[in-house]
């Protein structure tokens, strides 16, 4: 097992851990704003780590270039979507969730 395979495996496992963390936050947190806080960060980071690991595994080919293109598209679009959702929430909901209001179903 070469060094590149080890690096790729570590990156992909870290990305999977981040994706799981964000998903648990999406499921457990009570409000749309808090869920944006959980998902918007960890999805970008986890996606970047997993795609970097796949690109290292693919080697210097056209496939790695396409994977980096996907990474560029996602790094541009994921925070944009999170920002649009947070802006829409802040426009339509006057008061955010406070402690003691109960959880989401």
């Amino acid at each position: 097992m070469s060094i590149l395979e080890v690096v790729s495996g570590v990156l992909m496992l870290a990305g999977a851990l981040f994706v799981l963390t964000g998903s648990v936050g999406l499921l457990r947190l009570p409000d749309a704003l808090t869920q944006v806080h959980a998902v918007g960060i960890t999805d970008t980071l986890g996606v970047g780590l997993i795609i970097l690991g796949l690109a290292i595994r693919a080697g210097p080919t056209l496939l790695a270039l396409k994977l980096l293109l996907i990474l560029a598209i996602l790094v541009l679009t994921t925070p944009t979507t999170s920002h649009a959702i947070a802006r829409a929430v802040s426009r339509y909901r006057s008061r955010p969730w406070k402690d003691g209001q109960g959880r989401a179903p």
Partner: protein
Amino acid sequence: MILGIVAGALLAGMGMALIRALRGPGAFERVLAASSFNIKTLLFITVIGFVAGSPVDYVDISIMYAVISFISMVAVLRCIEHGGFTGDRDKEP
């Protein structure tokens, strides 16, 4: 092995996002869960391409999926912000 672990984690994340999209009390929770589900599906397609041994075929699908999911999410948010295609502008959906 590692690809299998990553694919399992992505499947678990997709399941949690789907549960949130089905149970979410408001429209914004559902939109957020659908966006997260899109991203995880895209990654799952790419990883499954590596598992299946022909990743070149699957990566093109992933590029298309990335662009389409972003455009559809922006379209849904625009529709919500403008109160749907017809209707009340200042009411929360």
